[in-house]
């Protein structure tokens, strides 16, 4: 009966109105995922999904950010959720490593053209879906992920079902059924990491959750104890479970407030060193660098120690690449991980002059970068808490800037409009303007 009590609490809480701080953080999560979805909207993987849908009778009236095609809601959810997570640049809940916005945004957006709800209803639907994902994830962390499950997919279907149920206006009974049905459809193996299958997981989770809600709306029931039964959701997915974490102060304490937004599109351990390098860029001012030393936590060497990345994916696991390109370009975004920049001779040349100097005394969210110029001059930048960490979350302005750059690759003129409409969503009476903006850039 866990799904029943959880859905009753959530439905009651949302009818009272969600706290402002929750809505504000949900807007930030939405803004970030709008950016990542648009940035990846014409990636090869999303092209494949949209291509199959248009070639094989998967069209309809649902839209995908940054795309011209109209798909049926299940295909739209698959495409949007995949795009949202494609560059691994979406939001991250650090304790569970869930990327909670992708699946719920995808499921919600797929319904936006048929359920023209108020902007705040869309936001609340996302908030509920994100919160339930994080609660389920907390109960299985770390055992479930460590075993090899991609937690974003396994909790994503349930989150997407809750989001879709709220947009459809389902009551607590039907919402509970939607959760139960979706809990029988978790998916995602970590074997697929490093391939096109990884981002597919939140996309498929969104589609599964959406179908679960549509079935619940038509009266299909689920086992009331689908989550906690001896052979239920948790029993299948995790060798250990702390069931109490699912409902602990649910509705009063919001785990989604712990959501974070990556400032750089690469592994988090690299971030402090990259921020230090960016900071040194104006001081280097194009002068010749003879040596660079990165003072960092030992995990940097272990996890992102690749000194000679050969392509965009391996560069994401090279702190040395991030530091080199940060010193040269002064900014590290998706462009700095594109093949052209990873293979550029100036970048490769500087990478060869960067050395990692690990020390267990340096915290994980800290780093220092020392540069020696050919003039003999020494430069140094220290980062105590990196941008995007829990201690130093991205400010609204920094998040807007990140999203602006993500959007600009697709809509050079559209970023300001999209950010403005997304931030204004809580006050909008319908979703039309928002949908038009993120689909067309206008």
């Amino acid at each position, binding site marked *: 009966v866990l799904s029943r009590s959880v859905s009753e609490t959530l439905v009651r809480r949302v009818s009272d109105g969600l706290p402002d701080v929750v809505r504000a953080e949900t807007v930030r999560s939405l803004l970030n995922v709008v950016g990542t979805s648009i940035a990846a909207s014409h990636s090869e993987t999303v092209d494949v999904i949209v291509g199959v849908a248009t070639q094989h*009778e998967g069209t309809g009236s649902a839209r995908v950010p940054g795309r011209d095609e109209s798909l*049926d809601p299940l295909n739209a959810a698959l495409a949007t959720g995949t795009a949202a997570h494609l560059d691994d640049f979406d939001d991250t809940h650090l304790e569970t490593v869930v990327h909670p916005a992708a699946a719920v945004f995808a499921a919600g957006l797929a319904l936006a053209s048929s359920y023209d709800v108020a902007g705040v209803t869309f936001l609340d639907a996302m908030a509920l879906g994100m919160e339930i994902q994080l609660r389920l994830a907390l109960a299985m962390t770390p055992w479930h992920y460590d075993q090899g499950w991609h937690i974003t997919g396994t909790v994503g279907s349930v989150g997407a079902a809750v989001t879709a149920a709220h947009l459809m206006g389902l009551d607590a009974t039907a919402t509970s059924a939607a959760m139960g049905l979706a809990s029988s459809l978790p*998916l995602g193996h970590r074997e697929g990491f490093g391939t096109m299958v990884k981002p597919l997981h939140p996309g498929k989770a969104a589609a599964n959750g959406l179908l679960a809600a*549509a079935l619940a709306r038509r009266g299909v029931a689920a086992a009331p104890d689908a989550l906690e039964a001896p052979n*239920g959701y948790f029993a299948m997915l995790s060798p250990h479970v702390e069931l109490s974490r699912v409902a602990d102060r649910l509705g009063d304490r919001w785990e989604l407030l712990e959501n974070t937004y990556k400032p750089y599109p690469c592994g988090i351990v690299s971030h402090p060193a990259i921020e230090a390098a960016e900071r040194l860029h104006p001081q280097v001012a194009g002068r010749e660098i003879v040596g660079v030393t990165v003072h960092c936590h030992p995990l940097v060497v272990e996890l992102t120690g690749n000194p000679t990345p050969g392509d965009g994916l391996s560069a994401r696991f090279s702190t040395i690449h991030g530091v080199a390109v940060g010193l040269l370009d002064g900014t590290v975004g998706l462009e700095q991980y594109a093949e052209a920049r990873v293979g550029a001779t100036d970048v490769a040349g500087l990478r060869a002059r960067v050395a990692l100097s690990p020390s267990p005394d340096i915290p994980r969210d800290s780093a220092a970068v020392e540069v020696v110029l050919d003039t003999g001059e020494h430069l140094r930048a220290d980062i105590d808490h990196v941008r995007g960490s829990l201690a130093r979350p991205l400010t609204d302005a920094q998040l807007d800037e990140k999203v602006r750059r993500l959007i600009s690759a697709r809509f050079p003129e559209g970023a300001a409009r999209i950010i403005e409409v997304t931030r204004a969503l809580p006050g909008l009476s319908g979703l039309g303007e928002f949908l038009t903006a993120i689909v067309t850039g206008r």
Partner: protein
Amino acid sequence: MTEMNEMHEMNDLTGMTGMTVPVSRAWADLVTSTTWGAVPPVSQLVARRVLSDTVGSAVAGARSEPVERLVQALSDLGLAGHVTVPGRSETWSSSIAATVTGAAVRAGASAVGGAVGGAVVVDDPVTHFRPAASVGAAALAAATASDVRLGELLTAIVLGTEVGCRLADALEPGHSGRGWDLDGTVGHVAAVVAAARLLRLEPEQVAHAVAVAATEATGHRALGSSPAAAVQAGMAAGDAVEAALLAERGLVGPPASIEGRRGMLALMGDHVDLELAASKLREGLGDRWVSERLAPEPVGEDGDAVLRQLLAESPETPWRSVLASLDR
């Protein structure tokens, strides 16, 4: 700490066991090289029995409550297309047609608990995996969408059935013991093999399609015979057709999707010996047909009207004309 593990995994992209050919690739070679004439007579009978179960149960379940509600939900979402399903007037995309058909097969059988409208329910005597709901439904939808000959449809079905039986053997008994539903989980992978064959994918594409189906494999035994159970069986068929189409268009997955350290056997079995299981999944493919055990004892003694007609049809007959004559 888990974020660290996520990145660590991504540094180690292979995760493969030894230097042998990946299981999915071995299956791909089987899928692309098998001809109907090379399938032994007992396995040919198994294919006909599974097809008979599929058609018979799909018709029997076509008006069942789970299918009615599924069709309502799919219509609410605005889904449509041109592919028919047995016993109903709505038409769908090939993947959704597979979903509806699979749900009808499962609902059709559970409605009467065994024989349905004269059709024999064909399940694996060892694991109780029932190929009709996933393999049969996916093959039926893909064949109806593309117009193939009966022999090609039956080949696809026997290939999916064989892979399904071997995979179920590798996962059981710990898999359903933990709560997974074989028709939903193994069904995803078995059905994608059948769909890949009917779409004539290249070997590399077959392996990628298997990877997509494996990571999407899901389904929960606790649902029993509820409407939801029928839907999740159908989703194995529908996701499989979709996975094959995605792979055909260029989607790429991991090589060791089945036997990798973070793959299907490791996550969904109960302490499976990955290397041993992988070798059994590859062993004697095309020579030894594990799925022979789905033939009746003694061979050829059972049967119903649908099966007798299928037994009599030439493999050269177009599937659509077989279907039209079955509809009479």
